């Protein structure tokens, strides 16, 4: 069944297999599942001819009829507030909104999320949250500007570091040394406010930030 997008009227398409033998015929598909069955395909010329003749009988004149009959379907218009509530809910979901701000409380939520408790000034540095209110720690491949360099390794980046970034690097190095008993190569980008550590140390850095309360 085809529906006109603009007016919502139903276009009668008389090509389909008819189900109801009423004066105003609504055509419905034989089955709503789109399956292909090789057994139903006629394998001889006679069988195919027979199927075609049956089809012609069924459909009749409509097979050659090129005019599509646009029928007016009767409808009722309702402005019920109860029903509109459900539509409004869907409309509101799509309307542009600010990212929701989490509650300012000390509790740690079940997923491990908490509102930052540290204040700028507590430490020589401050790591701000991302706009999504999550930690600005990201893991990715190291991409060099010079494409001839074929080295590939994974790096962890901490972004949005205010204050003395070298102090944070020192603290992080000590924290990681305590855990892994080895040093990690780190690139300090003071102006870009980020630290890039070689290796996937995302979990450890997030633990460090949690300890500090960022």
């Amino acid at each position, binding site marked *: 069944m085809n529906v006109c997008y603009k007016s919502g009227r139903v276009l009668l398409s008389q090509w389909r297999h008819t189900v109801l033998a009423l004066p105003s015929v609504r055509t419905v598909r034989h089955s709503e599942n789109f399956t292909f069955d090789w057994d139903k395909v006629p394998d001889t010329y006679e069988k195919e001819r027979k199927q075609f003749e049956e089809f012609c009988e069924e459909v009749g004149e409509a097979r050659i009829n090129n005019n599509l009959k646009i029928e007016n*379907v009767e*409808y009722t218009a309702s*402005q019920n507030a109860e029903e509109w509530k*459900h539509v409004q809910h869907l409309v509101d979901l799509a309307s542009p909104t600010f990212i929701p701000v989490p509650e300012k409380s000390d509790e740690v939520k079940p997923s491990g999320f908490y509102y930052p408790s540290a204040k700028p000034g507590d430490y020589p540095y401050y790591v701000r949250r991302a706009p999504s209110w999550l930690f600005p720690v990201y893991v990715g491949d190291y991409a060099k500007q010079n494409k001839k360099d074929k080295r590939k390794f994974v790096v962890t980046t901490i972004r949005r570091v205010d204050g003395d970034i070298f102090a944070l690097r020192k603290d992080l190095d000590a924290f990681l040394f305590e855990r892994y008993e080895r040093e990690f190569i780190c690139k300090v980008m003071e102006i870009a406010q980020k630290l890039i550590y070689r290796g996937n140390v995302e979990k450890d850095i997030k633990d460090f930030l949690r300890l500090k309360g960022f």
Partner: protein
Amino acid sequence: RMSGVREKALQYLREVPRLTHGNIRNLPGTRTPKKRGYGQNGKERGWGASARQKLHFGPLGYESGSTPIQRKTAFERSYNYGIHSVRQFPPLSLYQLQLAIDTNRLDVTKPIDMAALCGTGVFFLDPSKNQFGFNLSSDGMDLFKAKVHLEVQWADEQAIAAVERNGGKITTSYYDIHSVIAASDAFKFLKSGQPIPRRLTPPGNLLEYYINPANRGYLADPVMVEKEKEVLAQKYGYSISDKLDDRLLSFKKDPRQIFYGLEPGWIVSVQDKTIYKPKEADVKQIYTT
């Protein structure tokens, strides 16, 4: 007064803590790019102009530059045959769900279905990539504490247990691709002015999944579903809360329904704030059966 670029450069010099190789650039014109010569790029592409020069041959199977047949045809069969037509259910972990609830992106007082999940702007479905809905995975089942009324398209046993342990309700239901197109971007669909389609029944190879009460399928017998709840509770060692939540009971969806509260066949005009419903019985029948 100096020009903008100079002013910016001098201001940069004032602000920057130190000058390194990364800050300084050569004066324009001092570094010239390396010029490529001829040779391989010349007229004969390195294969010589005269008979004497053409005594060098290419490798075996060389076809004067076009990709040789022994390179074009693969030795191995295709391991991805039919990958474009396979039905996908991208995973949605319990941890992600809990995080969305904790950061106030999802409203727990309302039912969470595909439209609600895609409406957060954090979970995405792309029907053009054959993605038929969300697959609730059990990653984060130990920390899942929310009480939700959830409707997903696939769920594994432990994820179901995690949701029901907290007193929530979970059902798995099938959305055919046109229903997914409607539900994944509900506002876009409503703006298009199409009548809300009816959800089709699952195809043969998925029907078994959605009839099974162990999967909390929407086509399963509700009595069997309750039994399976008890079985699962015993298996994982928690108790189901006896008090029935009225709020959760009121959120019901017909197997043919895509959106809560809106029936198939209705046309929604967002601009006029009206809903057009068909009057005739046989039109209604097509949408509701």
